């Protein structure tokens, strides 16, 4: 690509920014709404918008996995939990905790760190949107050739979390059985 100019955006750039605004808006609504289940549903919009962003960046495989894991499983799990706790219809007055300022500070710090990192790392990187970069084959290649060690480390981490969850829930259920 010869014309790498920020001031002459293509159609894809415009859509990318618009979808980004939708994601941002849904994310803000997700943390500010006082209705618990609505928060989960705004999360659906935000995560779905992210999948669209991946598609616009030609990362097709990542986009579908985002839909499969986050919309299909994580949000269903969240809604399941909310329903088990009998989340009421209408606003929950006690939805806000006293940790609000701390949470805001942590969120801002994490965002600042990530934005700095991403800008610093990819300041000069350009993506040619005319050729696909995220087909299943390309993702698989780089995952299992270049990044296989982090991949395996992550799967060990997840396994540990899984076993930990089982152990914690078994201890609880035994204590509950003694009652």
């Amino acid at each position, binding site marked *: 690509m010869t014309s790498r100019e920020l001031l002459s955006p293509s159609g894809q750039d415009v859509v990318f920014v618009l979808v980004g605004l939708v994601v941002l808006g849904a994310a803000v609504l997700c943390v500010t709404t006082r209705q618990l289940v609505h928060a989960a549903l705004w999360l659906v919009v935000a995560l779905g918008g992210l999948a669209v962003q991946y598609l616009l960046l030609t990362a*097709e495989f990542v986009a579908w*996995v985002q839909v499969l894991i986050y919309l*299909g*499983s994580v949000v269903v799990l969240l*809604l399941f939990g909310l*329903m088990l706790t009998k*989340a009421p*219809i209408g606003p929950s007055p006690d939805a806000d905790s006293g940790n609000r300022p701390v949470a805001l500070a942590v969120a801002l710090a994490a965002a600042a760190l990530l934005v700095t990192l991403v800008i610093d790392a990819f300041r000069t990187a350009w993506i040619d949107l005319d050729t696909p970069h995220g087909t299943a084959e390309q993702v698989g290649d780089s995952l299992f050739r270049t990044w296989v060690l982090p991949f395996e480390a992550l799967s060990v981490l997840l396994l540990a979390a899984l076993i930990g969850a089982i152990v914690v829930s078994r201890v609880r259920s035994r204590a509950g059985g003694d009652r």
Partner: protein
Amino acid sequence: MDVVDVLWRLLAVLAAFLVLPLLVGQAEHKVMAHMQGRVGPMHAGGFHGWAQLVADGVKFAQKEDTVPAEADRRIFRLAPALALVPYLVVLVAIPVGPDGFVAQTLDAGLVFVLAVLGVGVLGSLMAGWASANKYALLGALRTAAQLMAYELPLLLSAASVAMAAGTLSLPGILDAFEWWWIPWQLAGGLVFFTAGMAELQRPPFDAPIAPEEIIFGAYTEYSGLRFALFLLAEYAGIVVVSALTAVLFLGGWHGPASDSLGWLWTLLKTGALSFLVIWARVAWPRLRADQIQRFAWTVLVPVALAQLALTGIIRVVTA
């Protein structure tokens, strides 16, 4: 691909989406009737009551569309659409015949199809919660628990086919198909079809709906067109799951004279599998919610893992 071509393909998908579920619905009326030794609806439209579903549609359109006073109105109204639309989107990626007889070839079509199918359940969950009804909430809870249990065997058995073919593209899987895949992937196919039926909450896995105990679960408060949309989603789901099973495990358009008659083979296999789904409703009593969970975790998941191991071994040996 020019604009006219894209429009034609989308129109064809829309036509299939509007016609095939109705055919399955009518077949369900008739097949269930004959299996139970009766004739079923015989009057609407004259010949064997062929227009019964059209008449049902008119009836639903005339009914009052009520929303409970305590319900979360916006979400209550949105839920049927969210339950139905994913099945329409999935049809776009299902190959019907050889040489690009598919609305859109996707590089990771298999992942796309399974991902979008998983979104449909959000409609049932939203309906169950927004109805402000204890039975509806119970139904939605069972729906969520059932989905989480059956998503895993569904994905594992589909992954087995992708491993066998070496691609995630649905037309690519069919191009690589050989006849001996059917016995090779038989266990995975049974797991996929069963798990698909459970995701659709079809009998014998219909504990989340169970009219006799929780009064249709998440759909209790729905009436009129919105209820009809949920019914339509169920029939569209039968078509989609049957078509996917046919494509992944039964060779899709492969068959005698598949160059010219490929689309017919796909439709025939889909129809035969839809018949099995209807048959299951008449043949088996409903499983309890805990039996449904046990069946998924102690039968389907181990079988799917064994199929995955078998596929891997044979791939490595023959490679």
